């Protein structure tokens, strides 16, 4: 059984929801990336979404764009991200790691090399923002062979027919985008999200996690109570940016940990 499935099964048995933080690998610097991953786990993260730096992250808002640019400036790239996961796995063999990124770096590395290296490093899932299911066939079959999940987004504008198609190809979990907009946008409508998540459940038994617009304990709790997990990105990346700005990259782990701990507490004491 994959780490992702084990994780959701265990959470369900405990009646808890998944807390899934995102940050861009190599931000605020390369030296603290593994420490950040461990720190997140200590503060209650169940799954880590690790961003692969790319200069043109078209689906991300300004906060995460800046994170990508900082990471690139630090010399982080796909090969390094894969090595980093391997290092993380030396001392953590249970927390699932999902790589989130854009297609071109993976294309250029080559699907085969990427999948093999990722499997060897201990990557559990891949979410490729600009690789829609109709173009993912060859990549998906290579991932399946190595038991790596291919995770897809479902948006508020996704039609029923397409939800069916996406669910038939997805594994691991479904990432429901709670808002119209890029990452880091404001205002959530919990009621609407809840209805959409229920609707998606008609098409799949996979866990449905929700991301975009979760910023604190209450919103994490509200969203996770209607779904299987809360994905949090921009609010954490803002803390990383502040640490970078202050010239104290090592303080990022603590700053992010504080935010996560508050969300964990709110989610568990529902």
């Amino acid at each position, binding site marked *: 059984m994959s780490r992702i499935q084990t994780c959701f099964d265990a959470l369900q048995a405990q009646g808890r929801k998944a807390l899934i933080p995102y940050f861009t690998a190599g931000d605020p610097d390369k030296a603290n990336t593994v420490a950040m991953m461990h720190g997140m786990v200590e503060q209650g993260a169940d799954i880590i979404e690790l961003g692969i730096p790319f200069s043109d992250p*078209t689906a991300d808002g300004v906060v995460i764009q800046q994170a990508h640019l900082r990471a*690139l400036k630090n010399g982080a790239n796909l090969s390094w991200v894969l090595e980093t996961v391997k290092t993380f796995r030396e001392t953590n063999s249970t927390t699932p790691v999902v790589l989130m990124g854009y297609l071109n770096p993976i294309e250029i590395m080559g699907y085969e090399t990427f999948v093999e290296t990722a499997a060897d490093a201990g990557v559990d899932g891949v979410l490729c923002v600009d690789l*829609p299911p109709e173009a993912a066939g060859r990549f998906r079959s290579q991932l399946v062979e190595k038991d790596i999940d291919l995770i*897809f987004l479902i948006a508020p504008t*996704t039609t029923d027919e397409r939800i069916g198609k996406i669910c038939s190809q997805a594994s691991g979990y479904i990432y429901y985008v709670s808002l*119209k907009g890029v990452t880091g946008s404001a205002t959530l409508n919990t009621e609407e999200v809840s209805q959409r998540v229920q609707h998606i459940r008609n098409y799949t038994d996979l866990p449905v996690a929700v991301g975009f617009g979760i910023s604190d304990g209450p919103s994490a709790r509200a969203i996770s109570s209607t779904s299987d997990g809360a994905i949090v990105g921009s609010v954490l990346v803002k803390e990383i940016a502040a640490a970078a700005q202050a010239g104290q990259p090592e303080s990022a782990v603590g700053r992010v940990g504080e935010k996560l701990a508050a969300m964990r507490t709110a989610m568990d004491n529902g």
Partner: protein
Amino acid sequence: MTNNNNGLTEFAPMPNTEGYFGEYGGSLVPEQLHQVMQDIDKAYREIRETPEFKKELQQLHSYYVGRPSPLYYARRLSEHCGGAKIYLKREDLNHTGAHKINHSLGEALLAKHMGKTRVIAETGAGQHGVAMATACSLVGIDCEIHMGEIDIAKEAPNVVKMKILGAKVVPVTRGTKTLKDAVDSAFEEYIKDTENTLYAIGSVVGPHPFPMMVRDFQQVIGEEARDQIQELEGRLPDALVACVGGGSNAMGLFTAFLNDQDVNIYGVEPAGKGLDTPDHAATLTLGKPGAVHGFKCYVLQDEQGEPLPVHSIASGLDYPGVGPQHSYLKDVGRVEYISATDDECLDAFMTLSRKEGIIPALESSHAIAAGMKLAAEMASDKVIVVNLSGRGDKDADYVAQRLGL
């Protein structure tokens, strides 16, 4: 590519229904944009066949843009080169001064038809921005143009025009502060509101259906040129030349001739400070297949798949990707992609100005430079058609400063 009854290569009916030209193109967009791209494709396929739309566009071409644009025999320029006869397809005489108005009108009419209340667009040199702002004024729809800060500084006259026309100009301060990041910025804005907005991409790039749609709207250039040259010379040209940024003016000229095997076709890329330096934007010449901005194409990128910073003296050519159909035409060998440096471009800019009294856009000057070179190597009974995609008013101050005039 299919073979028709005559055994000739048939290029026109591309792309396939998923937007692929061979292995290039497609619609590689985040899920949030998937549905709207489908909607645009469907709406476009519907209206392009209706008599009302065809008539409206045709009337705008005749009475608003000033089409057909002349095909002008550049006698003094040809004599200067001492070889083939050079004809210029005068897209510079269009309303707003470039070919960009051809697809901007189409996109604005489509936006109106789809009930959108706002059009957003990116621009490099500002020509697409001005054309889009113009078309939006004409159809009565809001317009927002994303433009890199560096280009804003360089192309001030176009920025002022956009503002006069009522468009909101959004300066893009991220990354390279040029065309690539203007595209990123426009995509970001688009994802926020696909319901009321159309992102009117300014070239034959981006996700399907844009490479197809923009090409179709530009195709009129080559259709006219084909008729005009037959009337003037009684035959088809020996060569076609057009500059390639994203590739819209080039696809516009080339499409009507793709099946004419005896017509040699040249696309001219910006070689910047030289192909042996990092400061160029010769995507097809030196790039590798990859994916940017929602489609597969040749990309100038490093070995990790990061798009490289690119350079051209012409802001409108300063892009690390290129149209998917050009990528395909390169691979099958139907079009030869060559390049011209910044210096060759400046030389052509001045030569055309002084031999013919026509000031070309810096983008178009790349095509002029390559056309002059080709003409010099060809016999005097040969005929070349060069696409003069735009006029150089916007570049006059920059060139004067650069050359110390």
